[in-house]
């Protein structure tokens, strides 16, 4: 019984972590798909959103979950500006290195995290909301239950919101004109251009939407985690691994990849040892590159073509 409880609790934890990871991965995969560039400043954009949420909470007493509605538009605009004034000009430059965009994002990441250290110091911060360690317990609802499972309130909230946002994105991508243009550009830039898609505008929008997703992720993470200027790297890592597992640029793949990573990390933590979780992350990363270079997206595609 205890083993079952342990397993289920781990599974729940992994699923929730995976849902949040997926949101981080989604933003990265979307940008990757359209722009063909890995945004290595992704985690640092998330850090910025978290600082917005933190200050709104500390100064104005706004709940971090509500600050999604402020942080997301703010980062959307910020993303548009970055795209217009930094990424697009660099994209036009012919250079020996085909990946100068990637280098630019690395530079951005450094600038952001160092600016944050200058302005906000290296202090650790968190938003101690009143419900931070509230939880629901299985035994509260069913007192004869042989096992005890718990569901953290902020974690559940964050997870549910992440799912809602993911579904929202899916509707946007499949039902709206803009969404369809984004998918078209991601599949084939030249074909999209021939079909009359304004590729530059699509690129800008995509980067902006990527920022909305990462801002949301930041706001969902801060009630359950904490914040410091150098936090970005860790989440860029996560996003990167998910993008690779999911298949470069595939949004469906990113969602599944996120869940796989979350569950995998939790399972490693329980059954092998938590110190091994980062090693496990790398193992799965390398395994994906070697055995499934196209990522989960390639499996999805194969099944579809098979029909």
């Amino acid at each position: 019984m205890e083993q079952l409880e342990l397993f289920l609790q781990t599974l729940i934890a992994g699923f929730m972590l995976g849902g949040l990871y997926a949101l981080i991965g989604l933003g990265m995969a979307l940008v990757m798909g359209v722009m063909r560039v890995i945004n290595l400043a992704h985690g640092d954009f998330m850090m910025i959103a978290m600082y917005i949420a933190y200050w709104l909470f500390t100064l104005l007493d706004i709940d971090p979950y509500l600050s999604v509605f402020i942080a997301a538009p703010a980062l959307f605009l910020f993303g548009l500006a970055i795209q217009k004034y930094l990424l697009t000009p660099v994209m036009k430059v012919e250079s020996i290195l085909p990946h100068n965009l990637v280098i630019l994002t690395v530079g951005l990441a450094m600038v952001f995290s160092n600016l944050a250290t200058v302005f906000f110091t290296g202090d650790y911060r968190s938003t101690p909301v009143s419900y931070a360690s509230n939880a629901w317990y299985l035994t509260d609802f069913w007192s004869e239950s042989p096992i005890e499972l718990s569901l953290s309130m902020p974690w559940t909230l964050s997870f549910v919101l992440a799912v809602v946002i993911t579904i929202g994105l899916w509707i946007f991508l499949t039902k709206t004109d803009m969404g369809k243009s984004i998918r078209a550009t991601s599949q084939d830039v030249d074909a999209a251009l021939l079909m009359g898609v304004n590729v530059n505008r699509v690129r800008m929008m995509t980067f902006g939407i990527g920022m909305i997703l990462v801002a949301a992720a930041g706001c969902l993470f801060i009630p359950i985690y904490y914040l410091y200027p150098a936090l970005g790297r860790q989440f860029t890592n996560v996003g990167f691994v998910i993008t690779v597992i999911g298949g470069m640029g595939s949004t469906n793949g990113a969602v599944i990849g996120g869940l796989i990573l979350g569950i995998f990390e939790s399972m490693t933590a329980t059954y092998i040892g938590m110190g091994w979780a980062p090693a496990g992350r790398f193992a799965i990363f390398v395994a994906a590159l070697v055995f499934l270079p196209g990522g989960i997206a390639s499996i999805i595609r194969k099944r579809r073509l098979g029909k």
Partner: protein
Amino acid sequence: MKRLSFFVTIFFVVSLFSVTAYAQEVLKLGIPLPLTGTNAKFGEIEKKSYEIAMQEINAKGGVKGKKIVLEFEDSQGKPEIARSIVERLIDVKKQPVVFGEYSSSCSKAISAVAEERKVPYLVVTGATDDITQQKYKYVFRLNPTNAYYATGLMSFLNTVVKPKTIAILYESSDFGTSGAEDMVHQAKKAGFKVLVKEQYEKGAVDFRPILSKVKAAKPDVIYMVSYVMDAALLMRQIRELRIDSKLYAGGAAGFAIPEFIQNAKEASELVMTATLWSPQIAYPGAKEFAEKYKKLYKDYPSYHGAEAYSALYVIKDALTRAKSWKPDDIRAALKSTNMMTAFGPVRFQDKEGYTNQNFMDTLVMQVIKGKHETIWPQKYASAQYVYPIPKWRERK
């Protein structure tokens, strides 16, 4: 070639500066500290404390008539940078004694340089045991080692709690690993059974997997060696999973500073921690220092602050007694140190495999009504301990 001449010029400019410094009758001391990076918080506490000590010493006439000027150098908490800072201090600035740095890894790196260059180095906060177990002649340590952090806590456990089993969680760093190893050692000596011993990567988001494992094992005591945010997350998730143990105890560091309570909120209540020092302790000068710090920076200092504050006094004492300000004379003076500081009595001894190590009593604090109170040993206690602690379910 251009580069070489550039460095040579820099070198001359720097040495010129140090020459003028001596001429002005001030004593410049460089201190490596992590002022940015993940340990910046502690670096900052220490920097402020050194500054308070410096002002006090200078107000009383300095060291042998020379005013102390401290220069802080940012090591970013990286051993290789700490090492190069100290190499520069010794080789270029000819500083005859080195002290400072926060983490064990950095202190270890500096120790090796100091021993090689035959310049005395005073370790202020690095707690890994082996720093003073290398038979280094020139390395002294003010703070008790990891193995002794928990002696106060162990005596509390043996007298009051009398547990049979223990679970140990620790971060996978020098500090965490050595703290955990020592606890395993002590637990064996006291006859507790170690049910779970798990490490985690610092900065982890979700501790529930290992905590579920701890819950299934049902230990009497959960002992954790963590820095502050991990400590807060651990306790929050322990509360959420309702893991009912007889006692939750931390091994100093993250559990012993006010941020732990601010971030863990009600989950921090009744958590105990080993600590080396507390603002209410009855050492001469301790309260005055704590109040002065609070007045300036709106918060009480952690024990790291007291260590840094006292370190400067120890250095001053040694410099005053030394025959000359040559490294070997300062070393001899440090060796014969026997003084009382705000951090407690300081005497560098060679025993139990340690060289030049300061041994002292350690304390236990408990969070009572949202405040750290010293509870053990009882002669230093500021409040009566709360034990047994209620189950999570019965708490409000």
